[in-house]
């Protein structure tokens, strides 16, 4: 099989989904090419994009594992756009974002019975634990550890099959800004600053087992010398690169920025 016959496997959430539609701006034209298609154009290869709106890292990585195990001989490059660490998917069907269930001013409302079921859990996770003055670090570590274990697993799998890999969080494992906003909504003081959050990330079990050679922006948090492609630290301009003031998803320019970032990293890592 020649390189021309091979393809990029892209996995991720709404930042990757080729059929993304803005909930906040339903009339917004989202038909522009997303970063996987743009990247494939630049690398002159094909792409299979398994991105799906609303999913968590378990879903994202499990879809990658399945696809890789069945098709590794046809894959040129695996690119994983990871998402928020607090999301979870129940039974591959119920997509739960606790932050959406504790914040009143965002568009994702409780559409399903199961969302009512997990509302107490969401408050427990996002407020009682991640904003607890005594317990936040332990709970943050849990989410960081889950996040990092997925990175290590996909690295091992790709290494086993000799596949090129790029992992990058398009949404961070825990966003300090998001936590600050929840604290504000609940009238409490966030018990840590962004430096302390980054320090906790660096203490996570498995942190030193990650191979930085295939992780774009590692170790992500600017206090640790890393960056996120979709934040200011990674050159993302919120004024021009997102869909709108109430929708932080990348617009056409935003997707070009992401594709460029991944392309440049690919050049350094593999060319």
């Amino acid at each position: 099989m020649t390189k021309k016959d091979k393809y990029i496997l892209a996995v991720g959430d709404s930042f990757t989904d080729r059929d993304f539609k803005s909930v906040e701006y339903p009339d917004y034209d989202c038909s522009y090419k997303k970063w996987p298609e743009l990247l494939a154009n630049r690398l002159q290869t094909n792409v299979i994009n398994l991105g799906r709106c609303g999913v968590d890292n378990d879903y994202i990585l499990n879809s990658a594992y399945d696809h890789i195990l069945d098709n590794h001989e046809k894959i040129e490059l695996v690119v994983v756009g990871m998402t928020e660490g607090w999301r979870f998917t129940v039974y591959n069907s119920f997509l739960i974002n606790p932050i959406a269930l504790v914040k009143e001013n965002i568009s994702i409302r409780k559409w399903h019975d199961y969302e009512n079921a997990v509302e107490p859990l969401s408050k427990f996770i996002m407020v009682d634990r991640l904003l607890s003055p005594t317990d936040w670090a332990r709970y943050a570590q849990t989410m960081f550890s889950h996040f990092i274990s997925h990175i290590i697993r996909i690295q091992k799998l790709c290494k086993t099959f000799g596949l090129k890999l790029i992992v990058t969080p398009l949404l961070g494992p825990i966003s300090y800004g998001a936590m600050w906003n929840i604290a504000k909504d609940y009238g409490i003081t966030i018990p840590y600053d962004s430096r302390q959050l980054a320090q906790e990330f660096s203490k996570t079990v498995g942190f030193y087992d990650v191979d930085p050679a295939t992780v774009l922006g590692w170790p992500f948090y600017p206090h640790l010398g890393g960056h996120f492609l979709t934040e200011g630290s990674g050159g993302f301009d919120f004024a021009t690169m997102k869909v709108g003031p109430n929708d932080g998803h990348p617009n056409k320019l935003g997707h070009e920025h992401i594709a460029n970032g991944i392309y440049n990293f690919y050049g350094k890592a593999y060319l």
Partner: protein
Amino acid sequence: MSKSSKELFACGCSFSAKNWVITDQNKMDGYETGPHPMWPEILANKLNLKEVNQACPGMGNDYILGTSMKYILDNHENIELVAIQWSQLTRMWIYDMNFFNPSVWLNEKDRKYDRWGPDFVGFPYIFGDPWTASKACMRDVTKDSYSVVQLFKKYMREIYTLQKLCDELNVKYIFGQGFPAHEFYNWIKVNPDLDWYAIIKGFIAQPEFDTINKEKFMGWPCIPELGGYTMTTGHPDFDPWPKNRMNPIDSHPNAKGQHLLADQFHKKYLELYT
């Protein structure tokens, strides 16, 4: 590498976990309580292998897949046999830390006993009232046969992923089912109109159904109506009830039952790999 330095990797739930003991609520006078040697230890001894047992009580198939995948990727060159005991469909594992099975919180009559207690696994109570949360969750899961079939699809995907990983890495493997995968008798409390035969039809109609290697999954498809059995339910080693189980209210295999599970794996190993 000598045979004895090679490993038996085992994973599963309480059917397989080292040092498992019966819960206080299920103890009965005159019956065993554990701990006793579990089948992975017995099997490893029979095969002269080093036992690596990462089974954990309460865990579901997402834990079993994730944990096994990580270990196999790291250690496949040292592994002689992967032996997996799969668990129930509705068990979930969140953030690699908390686990919960809403199927066990559906019976209101258990509320007055609160038989699990807040310390049972801790996690159900972070959903708020576990009965309320479980019913709300299971109302979505059991709203129709199609939704239940999605659970079976997830189950088959998890099995297939591990099967494929072992195949790709040339690792020997044998799978079996511990508790029955489904808990239909609990689900119909939420939706009495649920049609078991429509679910079975949907289950076998999924393309994933044919991807499971029947030769290496003992008792597949593990449902009596389809001619299958688990390692206990429907298996002559454990029939009639409660033969070789802990007691009449606890279906875990007892000490002898664990030897019988090891024998099932051993027999399959000899059949497939010698």
